[in-house]
């Protein structure tokens, strides 16, 4: 069939019109479902980490192993290419401003579990040029590993070092692959997802369940009666670099 210029223009015009109509009709159909949700208060997932309980069992890595196994996090020997979702650093490194020169050395050397803070105003989602990372309504900062172009702008923007880039193919470095969770490819960024895949099934995050000390308390920060809110009400807690205005959803009981 021969397409004349007139035909082509008419077809393009009609397609554009159809696409435009779809855009116009879609929002008109949406408020119905949105109104249904609005009656409920939005959830804000958050976590409280009790460092005192964590210190009691020195050298325990149950949470890290559980996280790595659940999410196919590769174990790469080269420190430069490491991928980390949940890991530990010394207290002195994590909270440099909470230091004084006279505290016992033991306190500064105690290990602190680190993970994505799932910020209220995340710098990483702000800088992403493809919206491959975004904040969900329930506060979880998500990653789309199929859309990420690997520019690493989010890695530069995250003040917590919570994001890892796959400098090499991660699959050979996964001891045993969990078929229920995707593996990643080289050239994309990844990080902790607050176990959104487990939350969707009504479970708690893997680290929370794996910890023998019950260090992690997970729940809805928007709900004043939730477990983390009760803890935060009763005890003194700190967050990592709150002065940056990111609004971390992870707090630490010192």
């Amino acid at each position: 069939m021969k397409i004349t210029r007139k035909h082509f223009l008419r077809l393009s015009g009609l397609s554009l019109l159809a696409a435009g109509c779809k855009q116009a009709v879609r929002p008109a159909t949406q408020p119905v479902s949105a109104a249904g949700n609005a009656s409920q208060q939005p959830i804000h997932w958050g976590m409280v980490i009790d460092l005192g309980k964590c210190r009691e069992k020195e050298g325990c890595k149950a949470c890290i192993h559980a996280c790595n196994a659940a999410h196919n996090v590769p174990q790469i020997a080269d420190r430069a290419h490491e991928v980390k979702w949940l890991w530990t650093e010394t207290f002195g490194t994590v909270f440099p401003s909470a230091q004084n020169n006279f505290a016992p050395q033991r306190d500064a050397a105690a290990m602190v579990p680190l993970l994505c803070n799932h910020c209220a105003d995340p710098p990483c989602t702000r800088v992403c040029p493809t919206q491959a990372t975004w904040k969900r309504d329930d506060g979880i900062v998500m990653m789309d590993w199929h859309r990420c172009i690997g520019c690493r702008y989010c890695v530069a923007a995250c003040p917590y070092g919570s994001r890892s880039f796959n400098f090499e193919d991660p699959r050979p470095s996964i001891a045993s692959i969990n078929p229920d969770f995707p593996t990643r490819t080289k050239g994309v960024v990844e990080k902790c997802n607050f176990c959104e895949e487990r939350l969707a099934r009504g479970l708690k995050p893997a680290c929370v369940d794996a910890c023998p000390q019950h260090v992690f308390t997970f729940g809805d920060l928007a709900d004043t009666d939730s477990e983390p809110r009760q803890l935060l009400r009763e005890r003194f807690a700190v967050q990592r670099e709150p002065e940056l205005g990111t609004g971390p959803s992870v707090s630490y009981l010192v």
Partner: protein
Amino acid sequence: MLMLDKALKGSPRYWVWLLCLLCVIAAGFCFYLRQLDLGLGITGLSRDVSWGLYIAQFTFFVGVAASAVMVVLPYYLHSEKQFARITILGEFLAIAAVIMCILFIFVDLGQPARVLNIIFYPSPRSLMFWDMISLSGYLLLNAVIAFTTLRAEREASPAPEWIKILALISIPWAISIHTVTAFLYSGLAGRSFWLTAILAPRFLASAFSSGPALLILLCLVLGKVAGYRVADDAIRKLAIIMTYAMAINVFFVLVEAFTVFYAAIPEHTEHFKYLYLLGGGHNLAPWMWVSALCAIAALVILFTPAWRRALLPVACILVFVSLWLEKGLGLIVGGFVPSPLGLVTHYAPTLPEWGIVAGIWAVGAFLITVFYKIVLSVREELES
């Protein structure tokens, strides 16, 4: 339109030069294929230093591209006629530099096949989106201006009126490309090294110094190898622009250093200490001092009346080397070390990384050669 036929007739020397460049490009391309296969792990980048030579070179060449405004502005806005023979060279330099920038970004991507996602999912909150718009707009502006004026010149007719309007638009546009590039870095709360309002002015000052330095050197080379004479007056004026831009750049660096060290907030001083403290095993520190010494030497030459004419090429090389080291390496790497957690991770570009960078440089040199060949052929024809 492109008058590419003019680039197809040249001396053996011209062809040998292009062939050499093609070999470097081919080598760079082979290294890139390897990076594509194995991932960015073959570079010196790491979890803590996640941007390196590629992004730093991108930043440096955005500056070179923006500096075309330093010939466009006097010529179109102030009708400085002695810039007539040099303006188009500046515009073609800008075109080559922007293409190099795009290539540097491209080779830095972990998933280059998905690069169009930037267009499919436009994100106006990301500075990278605006950088893409400003860079591609600038490329388009300069390509249209340069080729249209050259074509008019070949036909011995005045350039169309609308070219002047485009040229005037390109002036603030040039400022915008480097401002947006500075905003890429200076808007990050967690990176105190870049978190300073002086970054964009500093970028512009260093751009208006390194770009003219390169353009003067290119003009001198053209005079040597092709007998193309640019008015001495134009070179002299360009040298003055370069001198003061360099002086302003050094001033901005010192202003930043004062704020950082007098306030003495550890988070801010640590980056400077990493970059400039010798003897701490910091592999970049000697190079940062080379950069600083080059800057001082260049300024001494340029401000001494007896030397500034005779030693102009040397001063240009010193300016270029100084800023290439400062902006094309130190400024980006320095922002990552120490990491937000205070960890020091060394970064040194690997052989494949240098190979890819050399390949992109060769692409730039190739484009410059072809563009300048076209300009020179058109002008030779007119003169004969």
